[in-house]
């Protein structure tokens, strides 16, 4: 029995200055950083989540500068762990993310296209810094993993890919259901069945959350450590805070933070 808490995570999808909503990996522009600050106010909202994920989902790889600037800005006064990723193809890509305020780096396509990179990243930064992101969708031939923003399907059953990834020098697995992504239909517990039974690293599930209730089922499971939503519309305003309260009331073991304590610490030295 551990006192390790479950984690409620929020993901931001960045594309060339805008933050996006993803539906089955199709993107809709929602708003820029100002929109985000107006409707999420992360200085406050950060208290309602346990981790923030910021992904660069640009379909055409441009310069990382804009993305890095946004990672830095979101890190300001926001005291939650940050995982950043999207298009990480080199040790330098990872290094620059970590120096911009990210605590962990997410890698997806590189797990498939450049396995030696994974070992390099682990050796340079430590495997606990690496979040292996796996996107899965169902096909006529069963579940398959996809890479490159869902455009390329891997040639083996998804369960096999997940087993392979579990053996790589990574810290966590971030598992997204493409079929449920952005649908608000709830998390896809079927994809959880694809994960190796004795997974040695923590598991984060994503894809499908629309409201608080959706998080309960996955988070009360022993094999799931965290659940993540990227639904930028549904959780505006106070919604993350009320969702967190709802989850705690439903028996999900999340830490409860007191916003007054945080405010009281400002300039207290």
């Amino acid at each position, binding site marked *: 029995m551990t006192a390790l808490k479950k984690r409620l995570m929020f993901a931001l999808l960045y594309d060339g200055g805008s933050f996006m909503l993803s*539906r*089955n990996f*199709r993107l*809709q*522009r*929602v708003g820029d950083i100002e929109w985000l600050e107006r*409707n999420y106010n992360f200085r406050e909202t950060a208290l309602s989540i346990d981790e923030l994920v910021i992904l660069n989902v640009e379909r055409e790889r441009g310069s990382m500068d804009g993305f890095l600037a946004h990672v830095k800005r979101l890190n300001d006064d926001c005291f939650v762990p940050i995982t950043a990723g999207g298009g990480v193809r080199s040790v330098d890509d990872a290094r620059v993310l970590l120096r911009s305020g990210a605590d962990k780096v997410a890698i997806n396509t590189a797990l498939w296209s450049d396995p030696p990179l994974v070992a390099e990243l682990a050796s340079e930064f430590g495997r606990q810094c690496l979040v292996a992101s796996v996107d899965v969708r169902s096909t006529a031939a069963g579940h398959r993993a996809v890479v490159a923003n869902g455009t390329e399907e891997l040639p083996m059953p998804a369960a096999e890919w997940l087993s392979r990834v579990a053996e790589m020098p990574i810290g966590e697995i971030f598992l997204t259901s493409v079929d449920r992504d952005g*649908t*608000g*239909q*709830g998390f896809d517990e079927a994809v959880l069945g694809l994960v190796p039974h004795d997974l040695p690293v923590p598991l984060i599930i994503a894809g499908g959350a*629309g*409201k*608080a*209730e959706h998080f309960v089922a996955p988070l009360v499971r022993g094999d799931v450590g965290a659940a993540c939503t990227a639904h930028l*519309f*549904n*959780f*505006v*305003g*106070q*919604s993350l805070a*009320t969702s967190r309260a709802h989850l705690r009331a439903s028996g999900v073991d999340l830490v409860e933070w007191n916003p007054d304590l945080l405010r009281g610490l400002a300039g207290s030295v």
Partner: protein
Amino acid sequence: MSDVYWCTNCLNMSTRPRISFDARGWCNACQWVEEKQTLDWGARQRELEALLARHKRTDGRFDCATTVSGGKDGSYVSYNVQHRHGMNPLAITVTPALALELGNRNLRNFIESGYNHLQVNADPTVMRILNREGFLLTGFPYFGWLMAMQAAPIRTAINLGIGLIFYGEDGEVEYGGSTALKNRAIYDIDFMRRIYLEGGQDTVLKSSGIPLEKLYFFMFPTEEELAGRQLEIAHWSYFESWDPYRNYLVAKEHCGLEEAEASNSGTFTNFAQNDQALYALHTYVMYLKFGFGRATQDVGIEIRRGAMSREQGVNLVRLYDGHYPEEYLELYLDYYGMDRAEFDAALDRWANADLFEKRNGRWVPTFEVR
């Protein structure tokens, strides 16, 4: 003002025409979602099969018609009729005014995915006059198109010897309003005239002064024209539980449906109503008349399908509802032949003084959604 209230489940407003609420404060659309869970859909499917069997042809002629715009709903119905039920449908589109490029592309994608299709272009100059009159007299900025959308497919079906037409959903039952068709599969022209056109046809026609011979596609067939012809008009939503989001997913997968790049005017969705620029004006006038707009409607759909909580919905309605369609303004002024002052005066006519007050030239709600 204190008389205005909201559905306790979704955010449908008490001002919505023909809407009703139960003791819990649930509107009829939400009650219907509950009923749909225990409804005997098997029986309704058998009704559908019997209906289709009555009309099915194997001689190559069309045996039914569907109404499509290229959007998710018509595409969904057409897909089911043709691929799941093996019928030979003719998909019919009535071209709207101010068609959007994405809408045109979606229509083309739909057709290219494998459908027989007829596009009816009711005389756009006539439609423009009717739209304008409709905007000024009934608050429906695309009244002319609505008339043609109801009438032209029927005329076309009759002319081609098709005895069955499917429209998508009965918006009254599904989104809040009259429950007359909840348990009725087939309806008639009179119902369409009364409810969907809200009896505004005569007013608009009279004011427009357009002669009968120019109105072929805008007018329902007469009793004489219908005599001896079988015509059954049905809503798909009677036979199968209507789910706009499911329709979107199927249309995306099988009919090439594409979404807009960003949210549509006055809402947070990007995958619905992408065919015509006047829809944004229609929902804005609706907002002024009744206090709810496109975001409220979309929120209702999301809440009812379990994707969002009411509280989350309130946030989104407050954020997006009632957006003045600034981005289309030039287009509208040019289309209606109005200047800004006339246009705003036309809008003023519809603003409900119990719900809105004018501040800095814009109508601002005096109520707060809760």
